[in-house]
């Protein structure tokens, strides 16, 4: 079809010129394919999208087919061009031509967005439940509906669909059933309550498949009745919390037992994979159903078998599922029996398997086996690939701290850790060990001795210099009687390292010298001279921290005895949560952080702007307690480690480049012509000439894996500040914070012009680890048209992402738009629903009217529905001036002097919406100086809805207390959608008498 001899650039030119001249549909089709090919080769094809889309409306099948398929490959749901096609697509879906229906459903299923969801969902539903449609259309309709449901869950009406869904599960055609089951999984994952009736049907389907009853030959895969449908069905069952009906439960367990017991390892790879896919899903379901202990131990036994098999896939999955199994408390002891085997997997040639093993070891570690596991981790550390070292060292440090049988062992472990992988040991780790040593007197001399031993090594890591200098400065006097530990010797051995360290370490060394000087009793004149000379030298250092210390220490050491008091030992640290564990909780895996930096370097997401912010991490350095002797502030160290990381990262990046195609492979033709070796195992393919890189793959991966969640993971992320309060504040102003929790801050900045608004959401990641699966969904009320630009799925660490949101006000209404926001941090899934401050008053523009304009207008709007009057009771008492301010902040311009009565307020404003255009609104408030809790309000405008909505809106503002709330009831739970500020019922009832008076 396309001669590959042409250079792509030539094709480019050719295509461009062809598109310019007119084309017949056939030619168009040809060129559109060529365009897709060029695109696939990696060239940025930004022309011809229009041509591809226009082919969709071609009358003949071949062109239409090409149009549909190329469009769905080239474009994604966010392309504007797609909108052009909605009508054609809809016509094809509701048309009678089955093949056209299929094409249209495929396109919508693959790239349909929200707009498609809203305009096409009813038609697609009709096709799915229609009895006259053939299975090939219905299975596509099921998946298409699934896509639309994902884009907008409201398109499926829960009440109407629960019965239909149950009916769909009676389907005999397995193709339709497979698709329907996918749809069911999505529906129950969102709301299982509505679909209880589907549960027994799922069990029936599972029984039918497991017993191989009535399954057509074409739906068996290597003799297994549709393994995919089995997996899907069990997946759906996992979304129901329990199976209550005893009969259903019994038959389900029978099936599961049969799967657990009846799956044997067979020679055929594919049969093996398929049967194990079913088996692993069954395991997950058993764990979910919290079966009897016997069945659980059966599962663990199976997994124990799996982690020892030769087949790497099964080994990987065995480890992965065993980690999940750790959640089941009863079986942990059984899992521990496999410890040796798991440790062997830590040395597996495959990094994917090593990662799983590390996760599992970390999860299963407790007091009883901590020593063994941590020592294994340490041993592995020296040979581990770079991609895993940071994670490994963090995990080892945490385990050592959490489960240390005795503290000297803990000190040993951390010092070894620093020795073996200094580059990957974050400051938190050594701060923590210093805290422990300071707080435990019996540990001090031991730690000092150990530190002294490490200093004898020829080349030691800078972090080791820091730790040992600090510890020896504090406690070396405890060693004084040992050989080689006199103050002088200690000083010399530490001072030897000074030329090799960076500026962040020098301040620590200076403090150490000062302390040594203090313990120098009886005074050794020579040592004193040397140390003073050093202070002297650094007094002119360019680094402020070093300079200050040098000057201060120098001055202090002149004071003689007073020095003893000032440089006394550091007091004990207050007990606090380990910053390490905090760190691990914050960022489930630290490699994630590293790879996130890498990601940031490579990836700038879509059209959203990514701003990065390199502020140093969490403020207070734990050791800087008393003013004088302090460890350099973390800012310095942080920066230096960041700098250290950079070259390393660059190094890793170069590995990412795919093998340059410049080396012509001798068997290129063999590659092209050789059959894809379906029957044989994949390993038998011609020896890879890329195999040499096996050692490199580690550097490349650095996938953001999460440590297996060992602690209970509940959605306990608490918002900071009161969400409702923030919302009300934002109703009055145009920028501020909408939501904040420990991980994310959502800020808002809005501009309003007539009935248009442009709101920018600022999503700021507060952490040093990326936020994943970020999803923002706008649930607009019917009167607002809102369009949110693409929100990137991942927010890099400490980055802020801006997402513009366009708002158009169609008609007056007080309904509130809701932002459904979801992200994942580590294992926390946080989902909040936030009201967006796109409220009625944003579409108001204050306007001053003169008496000449006001009175004719006021009189011409003579009564309901254009002019409404109401007596409002229960008003928050406020002076008239405050009320005037409130009105002004709501964009209702108070016009003084229009009403002769000083107790009355008159305000005017212009309201903008698409239906009303600019509309003048007039408001009059009559207050009673004797009773400030009630007032009479009259609102008039040229539009009845507007009058009513504005009146209710103002009433809400007067009755409800916007800022500050009297009783700030914190709302940790998501704000329910449409939760309008409550109007207290008594005031909502308008006084009939007053109404009558108004009419008269």
């Amino acid at each position: 079809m396309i001669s590959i001899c042409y250079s792509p650039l030539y094709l480019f030119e050719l295509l461009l010129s062809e598109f310019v001249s007119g084309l017949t549909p056939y030619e168009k089709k040809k060129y559109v394919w060529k365009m897709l090919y060029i695109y696939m080769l990696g060239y940025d094809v930004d022309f011809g999208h229009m041509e591809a889309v226009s082919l969709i409306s071609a009358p003949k099948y071949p062109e239409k087919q090409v149009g549909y398929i190329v469009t769905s490959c080239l474009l994604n749901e966010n392309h504007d061009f797609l909108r052009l096609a909605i009508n054609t697509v809809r016509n094809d879906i509701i048309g009678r031509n089955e093949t056209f229906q299929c094409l249209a459903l495929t396109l919508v299923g693959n790239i349909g967005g929200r707009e498609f969801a809203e305009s096409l969902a009813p038609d697609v539903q009709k096709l799915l439940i229609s009895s006259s449609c053939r299975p090939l259309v219905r299975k596509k309709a099921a998946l298409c509906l699934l896509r639309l449901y994902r884009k907008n869950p409201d398109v499926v009406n829960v009440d109407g669909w629960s019965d239909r869904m149950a009916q769909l599960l009676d389907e005999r055609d397995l193709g339709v059933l497979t698709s329907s089951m996918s749809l069911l999984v999505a529906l129950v994952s969102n709301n299982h309550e509505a679909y209880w009736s589907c549960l027994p049907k799922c069990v029936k389907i599972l029984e039918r498949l497991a017993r191989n009853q009535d399954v057509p030959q074409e739906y068996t895969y290597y003799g297994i009745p549709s393994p995919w449908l089995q997996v899907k069905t069990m997946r759906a069952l996992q979304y129901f919390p329990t199976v209550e009906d005893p009969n259903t439960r019994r038959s389900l367990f029978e099936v599961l037992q049969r799967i657990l017991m009846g799956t044997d390892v067979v020679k055929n790879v594919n049969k093996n994979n398929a049967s194990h896919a079913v088996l692993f899903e069954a395991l997950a379901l058993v764990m979910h159903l919290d079966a009897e202990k016997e069945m659980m131990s059966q599962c663990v036994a199976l997994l124990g078998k799996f982690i020892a098999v030769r087949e790497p896939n099964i080994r990987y999955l065995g480890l992965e599922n065993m980690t999940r199994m750790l959640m089941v408390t009863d079986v942990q002891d059984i899992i521990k029996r496999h410890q040796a085997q798991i440790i062997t997997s830590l040395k597996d040639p495959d990094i994917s398997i090593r990662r799983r093993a590390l996760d599992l070891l970390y999860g299963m570690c407790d007091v009883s086996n901590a020593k063994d596991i941590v020592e294994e981790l340490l041993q592995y550390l020296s040979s581990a690939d770079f991609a895993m070292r940071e994670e490994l060292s963090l995990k080892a440090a945490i385990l050592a701290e959490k489960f240390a049988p005795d503290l000297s062992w803990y000190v040993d472990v951390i010092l070894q850790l620093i020795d073996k992988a200094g580059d990957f040991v974050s400051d938190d780790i050594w701060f923590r060990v210093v805290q422990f040593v300071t707080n435990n007197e019996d540990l001090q001399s031991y730690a000092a001795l150990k530190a002294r031993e490490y200093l004898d090594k020829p080349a030691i890591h800078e972090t080791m210099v820091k730790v040992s200098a600090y510890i020896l400065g504090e406690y070396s006097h405890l060693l004084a009687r040992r050989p080689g530990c006199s103050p002088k010797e200690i000083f010399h051995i530490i001072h030897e390292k000074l030329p090799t360290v960076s500026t962040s370490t020098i301040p620590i060394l200076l403090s150490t010298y000062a302390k040594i000087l203090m313990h120098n009793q009886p005074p050794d004149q020579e040592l004193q001279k040397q140390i003073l000379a050093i202070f002297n030298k650094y007094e002119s250092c360019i680094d402020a921290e070093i300079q200050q210390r040098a000057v201060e220490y120098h001055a202090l050491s002149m004071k003689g005895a007073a020095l003893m008091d000032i440089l006394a030992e550091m007091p004990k640290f207050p007990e606090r949560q380990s910053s390490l564990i905090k760190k691990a909780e914050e960022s489930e895996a630290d490699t994630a952080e590293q790879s996130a930096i890498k990601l940031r370097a490579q990836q700038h997401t879509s059209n959203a702007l990514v701003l990065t912010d390199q502020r140093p991490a969490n403020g207070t350095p734990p050791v800087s307690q008393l003013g004088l002797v302090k460890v350099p502030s973390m800012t310095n160290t942080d920066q230096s480690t960041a700098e250290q990381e950079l070259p390393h990262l660059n190094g890793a990046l170069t590995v990412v480049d795919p093998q340059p195609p410049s080396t012509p492979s001798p068997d290129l033709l063999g590659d092209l012509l050789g059959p894809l070796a379906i029957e044989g195992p994949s390993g038998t393919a011609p020896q890879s000439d890329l195999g040499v890189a096996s050692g490199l793959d580690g550097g490349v991966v650095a996938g953001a894996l999460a440590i297996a969640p060992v602690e209970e993971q509940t959605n306990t992320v608490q918002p900071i500040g009161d969400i409702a309060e923030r919302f009300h504040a934002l109703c009055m102003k145009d920028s501020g914070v909408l939501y904040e929790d420990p991980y994310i801050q959502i800020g808002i900045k809005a501009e309003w012009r007539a009935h248009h608004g442009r709101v920018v959401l600022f999503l700021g990641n507060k952490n040093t680890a990326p936020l994943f699966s970020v999803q923002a969904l706008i649930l607009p009320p019917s009167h607002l048209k809102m369009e949110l630009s693409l929100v990137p799925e991942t927010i890099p660490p400490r980055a802020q992402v801006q997402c513009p949101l366009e708002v158009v006000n169609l008609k007056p209404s007080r309904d509130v738009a809701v932002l459904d926001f979801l992200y994942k941090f580590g294992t926390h899934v946080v989902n909040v629903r936030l009201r967006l401050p796109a409220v009625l008053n944003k579409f108001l523009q204050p306007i001053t009217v003169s008496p000449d304009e006001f009175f004719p207008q006021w009189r011409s709007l003579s009564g309901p529905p254009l002019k409404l009057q109401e007596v409002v009771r229960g008003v928050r008492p406020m002076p008239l001036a405050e009320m005037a301010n409130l009105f002004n902040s709501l964009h209702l311009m108070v016009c003084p002097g229009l009403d002769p009565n000083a107790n009355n307020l008159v305000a005017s404003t212009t309201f903008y919406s698409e239906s009303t255009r600019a509309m003048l609104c007039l408001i009059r408030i009559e207050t009673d100086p004797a009773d400030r809790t009630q007032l009479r309000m009259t609102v008039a405008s040229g539009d009845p809805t507007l009058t009513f909505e504005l009146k209710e809106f103002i009433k809400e503002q007067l009755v409800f207390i916007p800022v500050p709330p009297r009783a700030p009831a914190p709302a940790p739970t998501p704000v329910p959608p449409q939760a309008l500020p409550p109007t207290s019922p008594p005031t909502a009832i308008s006084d009939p008498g007053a109404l009558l008076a108004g009419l008269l």
Partner: protein
Amino acid sequence: MASVLQQDVTVGARGKLALLIHFVLLISRQAKVRLTKWYSPYSQKERAKVLRELSGMILTRAPKLCNFVEWRGYKVVYKRYASLYFCMCINQDDNELEILEIIHHYVEILDRYFGSVCELDLIFNFHKAYYILEEILLAGELQESSKKSVARLIGAQDCLVEDAKEQASSIKNMIAQATK
């Protein structure tokens, strides 16, 4: 206890919007892209990045390792057939083996359609590879697990195209075009 349950439920809360398969890639041993299909919205730039990263990661893996790599919080299931790597990206908690067999299912159908398929078939007939994929996967989910049924549909499509061609070349049409 019951934490497994809770975890599954929270994962489910995310899963409702997440696809089973985020994208499908066919990459040759020389890092040439032979087919891409994206079920999640990725911009052009992101697509290029994904391709670069994954081909760097997967092509360098030694043989006889497992078929899964962990990448950016997702999993990529891949399988090598001669010179071609078939890759599919899924969520962390999805069933990996199921996806691995979807890959094989696809390859078997390609093999049956082309008759001992090779990379060159997929270069010259890459559009066919797309047609077939469209019948197997939709919305990132498995659509049809019967090879026969897929073969039937693809056969019917081919007939439709052939018919249209014949029609276009028939004399009647020529005249119609000439008089246009």
